[in-house]
């Protein structure tokens, strides 16, 4: 029988110091392996299949609670929401009619000019399962994975704008890296001036880097995706400029932005399909995103 403080005369094996050294070495090896070579991705995929049912089971009480909460909404609330939705629908149907006309017109014009219509409107709705507990990385996990045909690199939006990009696909879930994650890049265009730049996440927010301090950018400018990276469709709202500093003597302006979408708060997200009507790429397989977007800065719009 083991009591708490029995002196361990009979204990064998390594002393605590040696064990510590072993464990520290093992974890350092794992750290290096994970951060430099990504060796653990496969292991994590395998584990995630095991983890998924557990996750669902753990989430069950919460989802049940949410459903029960949904069931007991008052009639007044429903009425109010219904009225609001109806007015929104009315407003939107007007815009939709105009949009349909414009789309037809655009298709005709493009057909005339022998351009392909690049924009497809299908999307896949997914529910956010949970946000990763790791406070260093801005990632969320959604309930669609390989089984639903999700591929790494696809953009993800909510009802207001871009929230991120799929970076890791597991059999039943997938991971979205949010645009505010460190070094997550989005090629954007300034709606007011038409200037193309890159929007960088810096861990908790977004900013525009490498914009010369003389360039025309003001607080309040809207940034939308520019669509010249064969990844994001053009025109998805991404961020709004909140502050522009032009420090004397620095080559670049410091442009702080605020993301438009509820990057960390939306419960339902839409996975947009890959852009299909692009000319065949020279590279064999689309790499997950981050490295590919560098070429956008000095390309020209079509």
């Amino acid at each position, binding site marked *: 029988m*083991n009591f*708490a403080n029995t002196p361990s005369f009979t204990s064998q094996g390594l002393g*605590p110091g040696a064990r510590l050294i072993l464990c520290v070495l093992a*974890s350092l090896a794992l750290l290096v392996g994970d951060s430099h070579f990504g060796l653990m991705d496969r292991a994590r995929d395998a584990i995630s299949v095991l983890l998924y049912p*557990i996750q669902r089971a753990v989430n069950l009480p919460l989802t049940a609670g949410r459903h029960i909460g949904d069931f007991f909404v008052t009639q007044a609330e429903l009425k109010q929401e219904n009225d609001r939705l109806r007015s929104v629908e009315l407003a939107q149907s007007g815009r939709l009619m105009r949009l349909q006309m414009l789309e037809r017109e655009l298709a005709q014009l493009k057909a005339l000019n022998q351009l392909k219509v690049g924009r497809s409107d299908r999307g896949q709705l997914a529910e956010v399962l*949970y946000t990763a507990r*790791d*406070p260093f990385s801005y990632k969320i996990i959604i309930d669609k994975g390989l089984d639903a045909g999700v591929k790494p690199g696809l953009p993800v939006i909510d009802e207001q704008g871009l929230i991120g990009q799929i970076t890791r696909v597991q059999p039943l879930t997938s991971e979205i890296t949010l645009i505010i994650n460190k070094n997550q890049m989005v090629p954007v265009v300034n709606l007011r001036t038409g200037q193309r730049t890159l929007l960088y996440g810096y861990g908790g927010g977004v900013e525009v880097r490498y914009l010369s301090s003389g360039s025309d950018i003001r607080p309040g400018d809207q940034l939308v995706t520019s669509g010249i990276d064969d990844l994001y469709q053009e025109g998805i709202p991404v961020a709004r400029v909140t502050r522009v500093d032009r420090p004397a003597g620095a080559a670049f302006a410091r442009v702080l932005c605020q993301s438009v979408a509820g990057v960390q708060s939306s419960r339902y997200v839409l996975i947009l399909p890959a852009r299909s009507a692009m000319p065949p790429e020279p590279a064999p397989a689309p790499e997950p995103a981050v490295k590919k977007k560098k070429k956008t800065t000095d390309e020209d719009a079509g």
Partner: protein
Amino acid sequence: MSYDRPQELLKPIRRRFITLTFTVALLMELLPLPVGSTRWLPDLVAMLILYWAINQPRRIGVGMAFLIGLIADVTTAGLFGQHALAYCITAYLVQLRQNQLVMFNLGQQALVILALLQANQLIMVLVRLASGAAFIGWGYFLPPLIGALLWPLLNKLLLLPYRHHSV
């Protein structure tokens, strides 16, 4: 501090119970909590490791802390080895002074726990900085304070099933 330990004989603690506590703590890591909560929620798994390393040093040592840390890495989807490294180092620090720590009262223990939990956070921050993450602000060192405040409660809770009068 009026609460001195050890003051009563406890039933021997089963391995099953230790496993159960860790299972519950790791499952709680999987709970989808509101986003802001990670800013103040203490690391329950780390607190359990410290608790068992103080009170059951023969069961939970450096090696077990390492293994549990690996599981925590998977559940939090962080960097592989980050929790494992932090946990095994703090478990070792506990082992060095275990026979003193176990005689401390809860207030003194809470202070030590505060220092150890901060050491955990510090190790994890350093690991992440080394692997190229941005520093996420001093708010990251808030959860250990709350953890230390909750330490007496955790003790009471874990002793509850092993009081003799509850037989």
